[in-house]
């Protein structure tokens, strides 16, 4: 893609995305009508519990939702192209070139019988008109970029450690300079020291290349470190979205509050953690009202019967919670500037 887009222009627009898995016995509603936009050079964080639909959302942007998943949307537009109507050929050109994804588990994301160099080079060969020796040279450059000596190009994934493998996965994703990079819990499988290395490397590369990035994680610390905007997901819906400051300092949704309460407090080490009681509802049997209501301490009768009302607190800050219809409602978490 040519580099015409100025900083701040949206490269990714998603409207009313729904993903359902229609099984024989039941229908699992993994994603239930989410909308978001992502601007060039910005990073959007998806945060939420396991099973909230974060990865499924990401996979539907690549049209890689596994069978028998059904994706429906009003719009999935990446770099001005509608993804849902792409032909197979367009899709093959689009994947890896306009959008790339870093997968969650580096241990299983690399093909064990090809060298890491081959695995990086074949993406380059696929999308750029280069000879195989040029592709190999580019692959070596990519390895150097993610901090692996180019001389290890001919080695196989089993010869690398977990952190190194994740670097290779990142090198593959970045090989063709995608406009949008999706990072699906890129550090979950790594230990803490390697996590910090990988994250700072990703931040550096994102800033150098002005990429738009989606960071999927359940770690609020990573969100605070990397993201400009945050979308909190619960049971396949975005319950609160806003800039990093808005969501972290002026938290509005009871679920987001619950997430923060589950974190240990560094200022008060003797304080007990306050986990959110209960479990996320079964996605094959979602409640009629707000899906969080059964676990919500502020829930009133109307929360159980009707879908939550969306409240706009600023141009960017949106919360789906009916409680704000009541005058004077506020959550317990103190609001900061």
């Amino acid at each position, binding site marked *: 893609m040519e580099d015409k887009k100025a900083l701040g222009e949206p490269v990714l627009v998603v409207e009313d995305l729904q993903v359902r898995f229609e099984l024989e016995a039941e229908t699992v509603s993994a994603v239930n009508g989410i909308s978001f936009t992502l601007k060039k050079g910005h990073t959007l964080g998806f945060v939420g519990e396991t099973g909230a639909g974060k990865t499924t959302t990401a996979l539907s942007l690549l049209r890689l939702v596994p069978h028998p998943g059904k994706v429906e949307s009003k719009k999935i537009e990446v770099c001005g192209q509608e993804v849902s109507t792409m032909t197979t050929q367009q899709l093959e050109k689009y994947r890896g070139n306009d959008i790339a994804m870093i*997968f969650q588990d580096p241990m299983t994301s690399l093909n064990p019988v090809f060298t890491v160099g081959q695995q990086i080079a074949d993406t380059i060969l696929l999308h750029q008109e280069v000879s195989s020796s040029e592709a190999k040279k580019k692959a070596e450059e990519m390895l150097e970029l993610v901090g692996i000596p180019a001389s290890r190009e001919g080695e196989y994934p089993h010869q690398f450690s977990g952190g190194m493998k994740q670097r290779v996965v990142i090198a593959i994703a970045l090989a063709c300079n995608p406009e949008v990079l999706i990072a699906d819990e890129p550090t979950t499988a790594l230990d803490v020291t390697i996590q910090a290395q990988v994250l700072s490397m990703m931040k550096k590369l994102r800033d150098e290349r002005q990429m738009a990035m989606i960071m999927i994680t359940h770690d609020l610390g990573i969100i605070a470190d990397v993201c400009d905007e945050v979308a909190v997901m619960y049971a396949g819906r975005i319950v609160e979205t806003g800039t990093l400051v808005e969501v972290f300092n002026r938290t509005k949704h009871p679920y987001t509050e619950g997430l923060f309460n589950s974190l240990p407090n560094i200022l008060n080490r003797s304080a007990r953690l306050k986990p959110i009681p209960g479990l996320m509802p079964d996605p094959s049997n979602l409640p009629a009202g707000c899906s969080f209501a059964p676990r919500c301490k502020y829930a009133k009768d109307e929360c159980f019967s009707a879908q939550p009302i969306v409240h706009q607190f600023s141009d960017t800050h949106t919360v789906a919670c009916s409680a704000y219809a009541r005058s004077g409602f506020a959550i317990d978490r103190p609001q900061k500037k």
Partner: protein
Amino acid sequence: MLRYAIKRILLMIPVIIGVSFLIFFIMDLAPGDIVDIKLAEEALTFEEIEQLRETYGLNGSVFTRYFSYMVNFVQGDLGTSLVSGRPVLDSYLEKMPATIVLACASIFVSIMISIPLGVYAAMKRGTFADNASMVLSFLGLSIPNFWLGLMLIIVVALNVPGIPTGGFSKGIASVILPAITVGTGLTATLARTTRSSMLDVLSQDYLRTERAKGHKEIKVIMKYALRNALIPIITIAGGQFAVTLGGAVLTETVFSWPGVGRLIVDAVNSRDVPMAVGCIILKSITIGIVVLIVDLLYAVIDPRIKAQYGKRKRKQA
């Protein structure tokens, strides 16, 4: 790798000793010897019988006979046939080309059919196409070789001009029916192995990575998935190939194919001990070598296995 191969070849020595002793012992247990068979054809006096047993080296205990056989074997002498009087090695090598042709043709036919079939069935798992191809391969597995051979002769050879009912005299045309006969069972086994091995691989995360790169689905399957699924497939294919190289006895009999399988059967029937023992030793060496080649192929396909063979050489970073 080389050290590993040498080790494996040396390990074949005890196997040869074991196999040769076993076959020697079993031949000894079998009722009657070559003299009894000659006796059925012509009347011999008691002295003549003793004389013949002496010249054929049939007197003495099984152990002394085995020992003297092995002394000759170590010196490269596999003995001569009691029936034809020709050296065993010459007879074996003479029959080998026909067997090699049949083995190669049948393995080629079955690989060309079974791998695409198995891959297709795995991709279409649970659909009608999958079930149909697996029923077909089950059928192939259940059909007895000799029956299929006879049916092919009756239906094809007798009706299609140019396809002989047997023998190895008409070039490619004479290989077709025996290759189909041997290949059918092989195809069935290989197709099922390919399917189950591919099913394992198709659910792997790294294929999602390949798809996310923008590879065509056919390339994802035939290059990135198949290579990972290949180990069980070549294990089965290699084993079957080795066995066929040792002689497809029933098929060779049905098609009067001049291969080593029939040579062995004839030798056993006429109690031609040196011929039978010699052929079976050569057969086990052939099988051993093919299995070794398959094992070395593992290392070519899967770098993780290569790392386990012998010394590990790591390029200095």
